[in-house]
């Protein structure tokens, strides 16, 4: 428990650091541009994208690390990768699969897709953060990352909603997301099956977080830098 507490403290510290970093950034470098007569002093879209990209980058970094750690520790020799081709719960969301597709899709649609993927992960991340603690001898590094990702994902979702609200001209679309029904698999009695469920979830998390990161970098270059990053 003490170790767990320490990890949570460490986690908190990291969260504070990150938020502090962001806040500092906000305070120092991004003075809100207030056009004359405007009522709302808003953070510029560029700044919003900067933060979102940083956050998505960080989330993907964490999820990659977590996946790798899990893979090394639990998945060696089990052939999980072959079974993992069944797809992820977000596969129902049709996302661009290559550069051309990503460039052809309208940026609002792409933003909505990002939102959808982020929302789709809200639920599983919460469960992941709790269920991962039940894994036998789960290392601290995996535990705190699960919690951290869950928090950062929420934060990113907020930021993305803000961006979408800024970018969208008309009414926002319905909240699209892909439901997750994988909780029972995380609680399977059979360890092998349960570990595979975790493996698959982490694998999908790594993939989707990378998608989001990639899409956001693309969008940033497209919307802010006019495809000239």
């Amino acid at each position, binding site marked *: 428990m003490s170790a767990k507490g320490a990890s949570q403290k460490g986690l908190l510290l990291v969260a504070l650091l990150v938020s502090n970093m962001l806040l500092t950034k906000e305070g120092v470098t991004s003075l809100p541009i207030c056009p004359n007569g405007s009522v709302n002093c808003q953070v510029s879209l560029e700044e919003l994208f900067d933060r979102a990209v940083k956050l998505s980058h960080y989330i*993907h*970094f964490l999820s990659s690390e977590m996946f790798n750690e899990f893979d090394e520790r639990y998945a060696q020799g089990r052939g999980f990768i072959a079974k*993992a081709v069944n797809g992820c719960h977000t596969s129902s969301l049709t996302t661009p699969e290559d*550069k051309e597709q990503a460039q052809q899709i309208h940026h609002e649609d792409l933003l909505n897709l990002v939102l959808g993927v982020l929302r789709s992960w809200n639920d599983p991340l919460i469960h992941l953060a709790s269920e991962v603690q039940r894994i036998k001898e789960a290392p601290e590094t995996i535990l705190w990352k699960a919690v951290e990702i869950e928090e950062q994902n929420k934060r990113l979702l907020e930021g993305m909603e803000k961006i979408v609200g800024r970018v969208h001209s008309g009414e926002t679309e319905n909240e699209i997301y892909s439901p997750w029904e994988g909780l029972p698999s995380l609680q399977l009695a059979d360890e092998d099956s349960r570990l595979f469920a975790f493996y698959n979830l982490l694998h999908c998390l790594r993939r989707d977080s990378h998608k989001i990161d990639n899409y956001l*970098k693309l969008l940033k270059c497209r919307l802010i830098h006019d495809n000239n990053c």
Partner: protein
Amino acid sequence: MKQKFISSVQIILQLALTTAGLTGQSYPGKPRIIRCRSLEKETFSCWWKPGSDGGLPTNYTLFYSKDSEEKIYECPDYQASGPNSCYFDKNHTNPWTTYIITVMATNEIGSNSSDPQYVDVTSIVQPDAPVNLSLETKTSASITYLWAKWSPPPLAAVSSNSHVYRYELRVKPEEKEEWETISVGEQTHYKVTGLQAGVKYVVQVRCMLDLGEWSEWSSERNIQIPNGESPPEKPTIIKCRSPEKETFTCWWKPGSDKGHPINHTLLYSKEGEEKVYECPDYKTAGPNSCYFDKKHTSFWTIYNITVRATNEMGSNVSDPHYVDVTYIVQPDPPVNITLELKKSVNRKPYLVLTWSPPPLADVRSGWLTLEYELRLKPEEGEEWETIFVGQQTQCKMFSLNPGKRYIVQIHCKPDHHGSWSEWSPEMYIQIPTDFRVKDMVVWIIVGILSSLICLIMSWTMILKGYRMMAFILPPVPGPKIKGIDKHLLETGKSEELLSALGCHGFPPTSDCEELLIEYLEVEDSEDQQLMPSHDTPSKNTKMIPKETDSDSGRGSCDSPSLLSEKCRESHALPSTLQTQDIRAVQENKGAKRSWETQCIASEQKTLLFNNESTKSSTWPAVQLPPNNQLPMFAYHSNVEAHKIILNTTNVNISPVLEGNEEKYQSRYPITETVHDNMEKQREMENSKMEQTTVQVKQNRQNDKSPFLNPKLMDYVEVHKVRQDEEPTVLLKHKDNNGKTEKYTVPGTSKEYTKVSTVVDHNILVLMPDSHIQHTPVSQEPAMETSQNLQQGQAEKNMSYCLTAPSDCKRETSGSDYMDPSSFMPSFK
């Protein structure tokens, strides 16, 4: 053949018989011995061909005879070798004998004999063909060969196993006519090489025994030489790589292929799809690779890739390779690398590196984000210094070693996954030799030179320290007497001294006075000794006892310098100090007696106290005589913070002084004429003392330090002598502060003890006084020794003079300076 032949003969015979039967019966036809043959030289057989049987059953009988005998034998065995044959077993076979064989055919009518056949067993040997020929292909060291095995011909005779055959093999492709015959030797197996893969071959073998004939060829055996391995080895997928995150290529390593190429097929299926596709492009990326163009490349999708190798013999499939293209991006190295040397503000050169992302990578759209890392090392260096620079495409390198040639390389990597590209080609940059190095050299030289100079300086200082010092800090010349002989001083009589000085007669004349320096110095040296001299005359006088006898005139002339000389000798004090400290204030211009009176402290009538707190503690009684007009010696110790103020005539304050001495071991009373805080002290003290006073200040802070604090040294010079009306001497203080002046009396024999007036603020005008110092007003009545002083100024002078050396001796740190004030017996 044989049987055919026989049967045909029989048919003919039967025909003949039938014809005979038709025409009538006759004797048999003539048989013919066809062949005799030995399989293994130990037995042999002969076959014959019957002639016409004449229509009747015919018996055939074989007779033989040996060349060595006349006897005729019949065939021993008609059965073993078949019909119309005779088998000669071992017992009937002699290899060294020639057999003469005839066959006789007999029937009811008659008989007929064949022609005799001569048989040499050795020459008719012909073994049967080898048996059990078997073939197989084997592969050794990637060479395929044919392995043939057979057995020797079987023999009826049990003992024939010992026979040694020679074999021959013949091979030909199935479709061809020409055989290739291979001599094998005596072994019963053979490795046939050089066969073409994929061809069917026919193989036969035959054998021979010694001198006989080759056997028949054995029955044919066929075999297919395979194409390389069968089935082909499992190929291995080596790696898949996407250079720009848009397309990707997979490479595999084929199994070994010999001769016949293996057909490779790459199959893949994508995550979530059942369908299996084949590689869209085998050619673009070279052999054994598959190129997936943009259309066939999806990200965030797992590809399940396998490679199938196929040949005629079959196929083999590699292990599946799972690829998500997202994670296999490995860009090309950065390009357009430029190295540029720039100079910063402080003229230090630094290196500016710039580069471009690899041309394939589409960094601008944001689809791919690259991070860079560069490394560099001096050309001869071993270890690379690696610097991660993030996403920027330029970098500044500081603190490079000048004069070295650096190698720089850069590689890049996608931001999250993937792997580092190859290092870019090596770039070289020569860092110019820094001018700072030259500067360094210059500085080093300068440093060496300056230290050298310092060394020389100090050396000369040591050697000629006095002169140097004098040169640098020219001392105020003391009242030196030219040509004085110290020994004279010490030992000689006063007359001699005086004569040596050129002052003939006493009192010294003006001649003598001319020798005197026109300065009157009031000195802050250790005049303390003057004080105790009164108290302890014995002590003080022991140095120069004789001089005490001399009169005052002489003393006024020479005593201070003499004393100082002595002191210097005895104590080897630094000469510089001596010169500086020769502060005996002397009255020049023949005013020999005016010593005492001349040595007037500044206009201040009081003694100076440096330390207020204890100023009066030590000497309250002495200090404050009733009349307060006594010239006094002020002893001042900074450390002890007390002052001793003495009246010049109050020589009997010795006990206190003694005590002081004991306490502090060294006291260096100095006549102090000037003091910074003099005025202040003056206020504190009884400033009403009108008389000229001499302050003897002990400025010694450190008891043992022989040096005087130069700051505390004050002296006066004769500023001006007014001879016009009444002779006066203006003494001007020469010290920095210059606040005080002493007025000494010039002139001949007058003593200027009277303060005439105070001019300005630093000038005291002294007037000659009619009644001399003999009766010092300020004399302390209580002092016992005061009378001595009052006896005569000369004596007093002497006594004072004498005290100085003794003191100098007594205290190692003592200086030899005379305080002229100490010679002043009285004022007014």
